[in-house]
């Protein structure tokens, strides 16, 4: 398909899933609102620990409370974007589809697998609460910090958010590939990994030992998802690490994810899957 046609299809499908999400919200409003409220509770709780610590001690590791809040707000916005695009139908937790034998449903659609995975998870109405609450936290921190916001800064922010989001998705798919080889035990591997990343990314790395900094700014990219870009946007030091580090690792993880997912899919179509659990599939 040409690029124009591909983009047209992409937006057509995103629009389709947006409409379906809205119709679910309007039909099951109580439960939808409950789900959104639960997301907000989850968001606030996830960052509360580190924030309360910074509040109690006037900051952590050289960062003041507002800088910590900025970093946490950024991290929450990234989570919000992930939820917005990749919550529906376990597109962001591919290991569940693999482990439950649901990949076969993907084979019988006349769409490429990337197209399906990029669109089926889109829930702009019911999964947007995290994005809003994260955005609010981010804006509050911005106001407190009195940063100079320029167009270039906004562009830099958007680019950083895209890189952070792509990194999370890449990590999710890279670890999900394990489920091709162990569908039962690795069914929830992406959940474990992303939950751990969600926990780790809240830590400011400023005074951590070099070994920890290096680890969390490379092959366990928790620091690259929130702390590093937040420091860049705040105009703070990134401890001598190259400014393009998040982009470099985003590309590396994406390539590895593509490679291992393809490899896993080839393995899957050779071996098949006798396991089938319907839940999570279009529910």
């Amino acid at each position, binding site marked *: 398909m040409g690029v124009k046609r591909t983009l047209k299809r992409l937006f057509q499908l995103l629009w389709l899933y947006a409409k379906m999400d809205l119709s679910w919200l309007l039909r099951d409003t109580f*439960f939808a609102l*409950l*789900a959104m409220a*639960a*997301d907000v*509770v*989850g*968001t*606030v*709780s*996830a960052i*509360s*620990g580190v924030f*309360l*610590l910074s*509040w*109690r*001690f006037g900051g*952590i*590791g050289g960062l003041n409370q507002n800088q910590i809040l900025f970093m946490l707000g950024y991290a929450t916005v990234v989570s919000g974007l992930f939820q917005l695009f990749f919550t529906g139908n376990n597109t962001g937790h591919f290991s569940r589809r693999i482990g439950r034998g649901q990949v076969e449903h993907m084979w019988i659609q006349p769409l490429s697998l990337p197209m399906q995975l990029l669109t089926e998870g889109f829930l702009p109405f019911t999964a947007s609460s995290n994005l809003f609450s994260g955005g609010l936290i981010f804006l509050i921190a911005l106001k407190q910090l009195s940063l100079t916001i320029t167009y270039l800064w906004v562009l830099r922010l958007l680019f950083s958010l895209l890189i952070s989001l792509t990194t999370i998705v890449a990590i999710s798919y890279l*670890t999900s590939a*394990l489920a091709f080889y*162990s*569908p*039962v*035990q*690795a069914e929830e*591997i992406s959940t*474990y*990994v992303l*939950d*751990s990343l969600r*926990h*780790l990314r809240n*830590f400011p790395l400023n*005074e*951590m*030992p070099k070994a*920890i900094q290096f680890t*969390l700014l490379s092959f*366990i990219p*928790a620091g690259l998802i929130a702390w590093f870009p937040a420091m860049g946007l705040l105009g703070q030091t990134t401890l001598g690490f190259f400014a393009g580090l998040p982009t470099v690792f985003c590309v590396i993880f994406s390539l590895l994810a593509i490679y291992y997912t393809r490899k896993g899919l080839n393995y899957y179509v050779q071996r098949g899957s006798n396991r089938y*659990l319907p*839940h999570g599939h279009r529910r």
Partner: protein
Amino acid sequence: MKVFLKTMQMAYWGQTNEGHIYLIPRIFVKLLYVIPLLFLWKIVVAQGATIELTLPQLLSYTYLQTLLTDLLVVQTEASSWNYEGKLIGFFTRPFGVLRQLIAQTMGTWGPMLLFFSLPMFFLAPVFGISMISQSPWFWLSLLLCVSLGFAIDFIFVCVTIHLRGMAWLGYVIRLSVAALFSGSVIPFQVMPAFLIRFFQIQPFGSLAGAPLSLFVGQGDPMFILGLQIFWNLLLWPIAVTWFQRSQEKMVAYGG
């Protein structure tokens, strides 16, 4: 007892049938979880912060929490099994449903306890972390914590049953609430002062935070144990009664 142990064994094998090697990612993730947190405490203390816990206490608290995560905030698969319709099968066995859930859950703890917690327990002195309990009441508190964890989990199951089986909703709420309110990640003693008492007395506070506090020699054992016993006595009857009353909805779900 035989039935209980056999069910535990089956649950253990369910986790390891494809090979113990697949435990490695989970172990790795747990290590990732604990190491930065240990250093975070060192940074906070190095800032000159005045807190009730010393650095060795903080490190022991966090280290033990990682080793005993599954026990400190119990989470069964009942909510998702209800959604899948698997829970119905439990009613066809000559064995209490709640006991089956407890047995299956405890069986799933086995692999990580054996292959992560135990080795890490012995390695703790190498990292300069003490794994000697400062209070003899720790073990009783841990037992009460596990018991309470099951009661709270069953209550959550009943909530998800009435939410038409939105297991993921219950999961999201519980994950977030339990992490903060149980004291499993951040000890209550390092929270802002006006929040400490609230965190200690609410029901989740009698989960992880209670035995971990006693382990590091913090808090009044009688107060902590008293609260745990109180919440157990209050929530277990609610859990059992509500679960029984929810049986029809549970069984009818999914057609």
